[in-house]
């Protein structure tokens, strides 16, 4: 999923300060999974904003709503009946969600409550780890399902580097060396042959694009 973390309240307060009527909108997908922007977190944030306003004698109106997904127009449309009553939308969606809502309602001021971070997995309760950088050219089949682009700090395709020691990355002893993992797994499967040839340079244009990338499917268009 896409992971995100709530911005400090002080930063959020600064963004909503000029406004009186605030619509706080959560998202029930990725950010709910990583406990940063789901219905519960939306409730927590709205509660904190209301309490803060009361404590400082500010008169504000705060409403909470959570959409199943903030990045899909069909769900965003649910805001139609409500949005006109508010001055600002405080979105707990990921960056994709915030911008998608902004496109549907371009006249409404919308601000992000979260810092969107990475694509990752829920490894354990309360622990999310990045494992994909959306390079657009997946090579997990060659690297025993350990992504070198994401999990090797230097993005090596012919690793490991000279700093790999005791299975740890030189950058942080808490970070496993991805290349140690790749080599071990391939060794176990008897597929070290996959590493024998020099892996060529990546086509980074698939990740960078020329501006924002897009996918277009004629068969899916209405």
């Amino acid at each position, binding site marked *: 999923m896409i992971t995100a973390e709530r911005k400090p309240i002080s930063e959020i307060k600064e963004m909503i300060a000029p406004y009186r009527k605030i619509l706080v909108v959560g998202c029930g997908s990725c950010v709910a999974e990583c406990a940063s922007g789901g219905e519960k977190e939306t409730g927590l944030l709205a509660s904190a904003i209301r309490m803060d306003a009361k404590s400082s004698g500010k008169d504000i109106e705060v409403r909470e709503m959570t959409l199943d997904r903030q990045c899909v127009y069909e769900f965003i449309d649910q805001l139609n009946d409500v949005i006109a009553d508010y001055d600002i939308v405080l979105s707990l969606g990921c960056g994709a969600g915030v911008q998608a809502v902004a496109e549907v309602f371009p006249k409404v001021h919308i601000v992000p409550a979260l810092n969107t971070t990475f694509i990752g997995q829920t490894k354990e309760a309360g622990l999310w780890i990045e494992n994909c950088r959306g390079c657009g050219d997946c090579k997990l089949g060659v690297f025993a399902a350990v992504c070198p682009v994401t999990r090797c*700090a*230097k*993005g*090596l*395709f*012919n*690793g*490991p*580097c*000279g*700093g*790999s*020691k*005791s*299975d740890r990355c*030189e*950058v942080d002893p808490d970070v496993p*060396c991805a290349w*140690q993992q790749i*080599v*071990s797994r391939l*060794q176990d499967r008897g597929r*070290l042959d996959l*590493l*024998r*040839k*020099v*892996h*060529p*340079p990546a086509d*980074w244009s698939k990740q960078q694009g020329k501006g924002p990338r897009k996918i277009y499917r004629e068969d899916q268009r209405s």
Partner: protein
Amino acid sequence: MTTESRLKKILQSGKFAVTAECGPPKGADPEVVRNKGKILKDYTDSVNVTDNQTGVVRLCSLAACALLRAEGIDPVLQMVTRDRNRIALQSDVLGASALGIRNILCLSGDHQSFGNQPEAKGVFDIDSIQFVKTVRTMRDAGEVIGGDKLATPPQLFIGAVENPFADPLQYRATRLATKVDAGAEFIQTQCIYNIDRFKEWMGFVRDNGLEGKVFILGGITPLKSARMAEYMANNVAGMDVPDEIIRRMKSVPQKEQRQEGIRIALETIQALQSIKGIHGVHIMAIEWEDVVPQIVQEAKLFPRPQV
């Protein structure tokens, strides 16, 4: 250009090579580089210049190599893939050759988080092995990545590094084989304190059929103090400093520790000379370049042969 790589000539003639490292200054003064060059010139076959080592901004390797070249030294241009994309790397390769630099060492580089620019974007467009292959293709096929032709190919003797002390141990020799396949002609290793482990690695190297396929120079860094030994053991990634070495350094009073460090270095050089498949020594006495003449002399490797 009629300049040739002295390092290549020495290695090809079967003589035991001596290279050393010159660390460029954190500043723009060319005299610093020239002075280090003067110290090292007669005691080495070639001099490496490091490339923003540990991610700290220093006078660039290319410029420093050009300065050394002008002093009649045969420099080894170290280039890391951390800071430049393939356009810049290939361009600098052409520039190096144009400046008469005849040796290149291709590395990935220490991660940018270690240096004084931890917020910099680590480029890593290509890795060290892809870079070796790129330079080899530029030189031998006159082509850049993608196949476009070069009007004049660069002339460079191509090297890479290997760390026999990093994990996974056995795989290191396989990786060396891949580097050789990519086109590496010489290897300089990470500095050696654990000679037994090094010999073990060399065994794997020979088992992989690499003896005779690539010139290997063993790395040496003389220890200045017991504290340095401990620091390297605990804080430098991929370093293997046996307890015995630390004990030796601690067993002498502080003002004699440099001498002990030199003694250990000399013993290591002697051991290297008797290992099959080792063709030279690479002395990395960073910020202690003036110890190199002493070491080379006491190791009976002075004067350097004529080629």
